């Protein structure tokens, strides 16, 4: 388990040939991206930027983000820890391959309308 984890840590994060910004630098320790303000519930969607040259987990992540997908879902689906998922997503946002959606916490729009929509949906469960 830990062997394979260090394998992809090394392979994806540290052996990138020409990263503009090192993800662990961007993320200040990789649990939270300072640049893009990513949270574990932040959803990302891939952009039109060509991702044909991306490899391994970077490619996989962009492929998985064809529809809006949260960092947590990517972490679970790709079987990589949250901190690394945040760092990699942060890098792919920096390179323009992913677009981050806002979380409600970022919008300061916790209002009655949104709570009402949530309540109506949960009542249908």
């Amino acid at each position, binding site marked *: 388990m830990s*062997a394979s984890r260090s394998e992809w840590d090394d392979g994806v994060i540290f052996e990138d040939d020409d990263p503009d910004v090192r993800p*662990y630098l961007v993320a200040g320790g990789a649990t939270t991206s300072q640049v893009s303000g990513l949270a*574990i519930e932040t959803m990302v969607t891939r952009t039109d930027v060509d991702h044909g040259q991306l490899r391994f987990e970077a490619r996989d992540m962009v492929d998985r983000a064809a529809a809006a997908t949260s960092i947590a879902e990517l972490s679970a689906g790709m079987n990589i*820890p949250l901190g690394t998922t945040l760092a990699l997503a942060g890098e792919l946002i920096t390179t323009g391959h992913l677009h981050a*959606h806002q979380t*409600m916490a970022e919008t300061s729009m916790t209002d009655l309308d*949104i709570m009402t929509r949530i309540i109506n949906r*949960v009542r249908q469960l």
Partner: protein
Amino acid sequence: MYGNSEQPTPLRGRNPLSVKFVVAGGFGVGKTTMVNAVSEIEPLRTEAAITGASVGIDDTSKVQTKTTTTVAMDFGRLTIDDELVLFLFGTPGQDRFGFMWDDITTGALGAVVLVDSRRLADCFFAIDYFERRQIPFVIAVNRFNGVVDHTLDDIRSALNVDAGVPMVECDARQLESVRTTLLVLFDLIISKLHPGEQSDLLRQAC
């Protein structure tokens, strides 16, 4: 729209927004069951390694190869509408994993603290945490075997929580019960947005 993986054009702008809630409580109290009740997908499990504030950048790879300090947590997803997706995260079951809580709870609109009435102490950490962070929360007492062996008032006294903290009985295996618990939480959040407004559901739980 965003549920369709064939959709070629990415969504732009801020939508869909994501909104987060948290379910906390001791090990085995039913957090994953509650997540499962709400989620439109099979609850997913993700892991976090000990990184971040406690470990320097240079140390990260060393720590990960030396130890197996990862923590699993479960979460689910519920699409509210085209513009809003709800995520419900279960916290790690033991408070020694408290270092993860900031990542999980930052930005959360509210929380459910699931309580096993036979093991009250298991939820102390969660209650302290949400009180300190001023995150609205409800206390949901899980009815194991369908029986709560203490009254809610007894439990409220034992937990020493404010009268403004709603308390409900909850069997995480029962959808209706989970739904009611969440609706009480949502009403609590609304009452904090609009002080003075209190739904009947919330009034009963306080």
